[in-house]
């Protein structure tokens, strides 16, 4: 009995912290706190909203300047604009607060918890760039359903660090009151976005002075979330311009060297910055390739040789690779739900691959470019935004298209899942955010991929075409044969040819005689 009680108490002692930890992890996963939802960029929300969807609200970007992809904390979605960082009410689309920002490339922010338990928003700003037509810093965007003036909370003006130098800075603010906590200048320009894992912030950059040319070097940084101090910094041999994935104690970086051109895949110990394994170099014709996604002991990425690769996260060895139809945009990543890897190539090919061996479970071709949207898995559907301004949902079991939104001006980019809402960034002339919610009155589609051969349809079309072309051509042939004589039987042809030869030879004759 004592032994039983002892065992029970041991179980309780060992189990409770794990339950608490598991609960915390689950809580973390419900928030879409960074690019693709989590530090590993899995893009997976098992309880995410399900299609069909309808538009809940749209938020135009101020003065038409684009917004970054959103991250979500509770009922607030955070997005980065050229001149401000905006907190948007997920339910209404109204701007709840905004923080002035000193320009710079738009990149996705991240939200983490510091050692004091405070929620911290981290984003990148600067160096400032002159944007034609940009509105004054005080301008506030409004959402379309109920356009009301946004309330800009009192927040500290950004320091001039980003303005005066030619480098980007990492800025941290308290999410609760939007007060700046720290600011750390980098050595180069950053557009990688921010990744937060535990108490560390990971960000990449590229060398200064390479705004107009493709840089061939860059660094990856690990900063303390508490005070912004640099924990470690490493050169990566190329520009680190895609989001850094962190999982299993490693930080994974995909860097690009346009001079060579090559893509470098590097892994660093997340705590110390020591290289976990020797960097891999993919010598490909272009540096197009996705951001890394980690999970299940593997690192997944798509590259310019049209291959999806799974690398062993512990040593970088290739586990499998799978050929797809096209290359991958650097603005995308893959999604991973524990059993399958989901990808979208530039040409609109969507794929689900078995995580064990890379075997293709299904593929669907949307025949539209996918430029800035990484696939996300929301429950039983894969969502992806297209360059024609629509979003599609694919059933991850069947690979059939179950929903598509109407085509709208401006592409749909990065997608964030917030409870029952899908928030996507829109580009182009109508740049801003667009939010979808489940539509109980909507209908689901069940369209197979156009790449699936339908024998009856295809053969009947061919047969009709063949009869038409054959019949018309043969009729023309008969008519022309009657008019001009059948081809080949015409000795005239030979006569004409002989005449031509004679004429050709006769042309030389007088000259020959003259020469003689």
């Amino acid at each position: 009995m004592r032994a039983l009680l002892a065992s029970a108490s041991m179980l309780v002692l060992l189990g409770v912290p794990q339950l608490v930890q598991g609960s915390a992890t689950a809580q973390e996963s419900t928030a879409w706190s960074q690019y693709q939802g989590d530090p590993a960029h899995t893009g997976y929300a098992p309880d995410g909203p399900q299609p069909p969807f309808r538009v809940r609200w749209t938020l135009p970007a101020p003065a038409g300047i684009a917004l970054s992809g959103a991250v979500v904390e509770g009922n607030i979605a955070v997005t980065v604009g050229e001149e401000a960082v905006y907190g948007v009410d997920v339910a209404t689309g109204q701007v709840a607060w905004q923080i002035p920002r000193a320009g710079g490339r738009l990149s996705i922010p991240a939200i983490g918890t510091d050692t004091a338990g405070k929620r911290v928003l981290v984003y990148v700003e600067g160096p400032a760039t002159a944007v034609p037509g940009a509105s004054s810093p005080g301008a506030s965007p409004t959402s379309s359903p109920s356009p009301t003036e946004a309330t800009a909370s009192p927040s500290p003006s950004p320091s001039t660090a980003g303005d005066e130098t030619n480098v980007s800075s990492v800025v941290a603010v308290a999410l609760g009151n939007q007060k700046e906590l720290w600011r750390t200048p980098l050595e180069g320009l950053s557009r990688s976005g921010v990744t937060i894992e535990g108490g560390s912030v990971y960000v990449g950059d590229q060398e200064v002075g390479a705004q107009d040319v493709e840089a061939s070097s860059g660094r990856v940084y690990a900063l303390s979330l508490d005070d912004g101090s640099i924990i470690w910094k490493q050169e990566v041999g190329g520009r680190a311009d895609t989001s850094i994935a962190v999982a299993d104690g490693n930080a994974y970086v995909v860097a690009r060297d346009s001079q060579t051109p090559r893509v470098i895949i590097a892994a660093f110990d997340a705590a110390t910055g020591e290289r976990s394994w020797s960097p891999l170099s993919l010598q490909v014709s272009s540096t197009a390739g996705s951001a890394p996604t980690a999970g299940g002991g593997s690192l997944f990425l798509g590259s310019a040789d049209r291959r999806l690769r799974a690398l062993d996260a512990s040593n970088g060895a290739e586990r499998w690779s799978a050929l797809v139809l096209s290359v991958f945009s650097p603005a995308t990543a893959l999604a991973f739900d524990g059993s399958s890897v989901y990808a979208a190539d530039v040409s609109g090919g969507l794929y689900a691959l078995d995580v064990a061996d890379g075997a293709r479970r299904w593929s669907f071709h949307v025949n539209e470019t996918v430029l800035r949207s990484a696939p996300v898995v929301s429950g039983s559907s894969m969502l992806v935004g297209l360059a024609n301004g629509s979003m599609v949902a694919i059933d991850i079991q069947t690979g059939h298209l179950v929903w598509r939104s109407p085509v709208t001006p401006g592409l749909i980019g990065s997608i964030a899942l917030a409870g029952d809402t899908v928030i996507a960034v829109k580009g182009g002339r109508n740049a801003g955010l667009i939010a979808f919610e489940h539509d109980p009155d909507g209908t689901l589609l069940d369209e197979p991929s156009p790449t699936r051969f339908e024998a009856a349809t295809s053969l009947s079309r061919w047969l009709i075409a063949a009869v038409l072309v054959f019949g018309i051509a043969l009729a023309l042939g008969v008519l022309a044969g009657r008019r001009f004589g059948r081809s080949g039987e015409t000795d005239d042809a030979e006569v004409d040819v002989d005449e031509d030869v004679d004429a050709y030879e006769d042309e030389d004759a007088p000259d020959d005689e003259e020469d003689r």
Partner: protein
Amino acid sequence: MTAKKRRRPQRPRPAPEPETTQVEEQEEQTPQRRPFGSGLLAGGPSPMPPIGRSLGNGLLAVVSSPILLAIAVVVPLLAWLALLAIGFEGRPSLLVDVLALPPISTYFDLGTGESLLSLGPAFLVFIGIALLIRSLLYALLAGMIVETLEDGRISRWGLLRGVSAIPTVLAVNLLSFSLILASNVIFPILGPGIGLLAAIGSLVGGLFFLGFAPTAAVRQQRGAVESIRRSGRAAMLPGSRHVLFCALYFFVALPVVVGLAPGGSQVTANPTLSGWIFILAASVLHLAFMAALAFRWIGVEPAVPEEPVRRRQAQRRPLASRQRGRR
């Protein structure tokens, strides 16, 4: 026309020796009358039929032959089914060039192979098989087209003559493949502008020099090397506007046919009806150009020199000087 009346296939007609000598001496003594390039673009008296007449006869030969028409409409379907069977996913509009003349057809093979298998050993195997199948098909087509132009019908004799041309057509396809590989390696060094022009020029040049070889092999039953040499000599004959013919084909086969193909960028396994109509019509057009080339060869065949002109000049020069000495 009955079988009894069917003419026997024409034997190669060697060019008459004295006339050849006259022409050579003419070339030697009055070089200013035929400046370099006069045979490429400039018109003038030529043993080669004009472009319009060649195309008209080529088209008439194809549309008046149910067998050739059937090949033009069936081959794209078979190619598409075969590609789907081995896992191809791509644009069916590519099929507009499935029956194109090399080296455009070589581009089709390279594109589908690369899309299907990426670059690697399997890609080379695919290309090898594709070139073999294409060589067999094109050799048979050459035999059938020549017989249609000669007799207005297709018989087993035409097929047999086509079979004898397989080595030549295979050599032509291999040369086209090598040409494209070389142009992909060399011309990018020249930069985007000049490199592109050079690449297009090399493709037109490939068709220019190699285009007559299958017909020459069918008609004259010579080996691959000799047929290709004769093809080149025929293309270089003055006044033929043969470069114009080849450039016209490239313009039609690439920007026009590919650019106008319905659903050009759509990836699907099920081409639309309009897509199929366009693909099949394009295939008929390619066969018409193939037949036009054959018609031009038949026209120019008697005037094609037996030996390379420069070599003959070098051999004749001492003889000519001796003759002048006697005079």
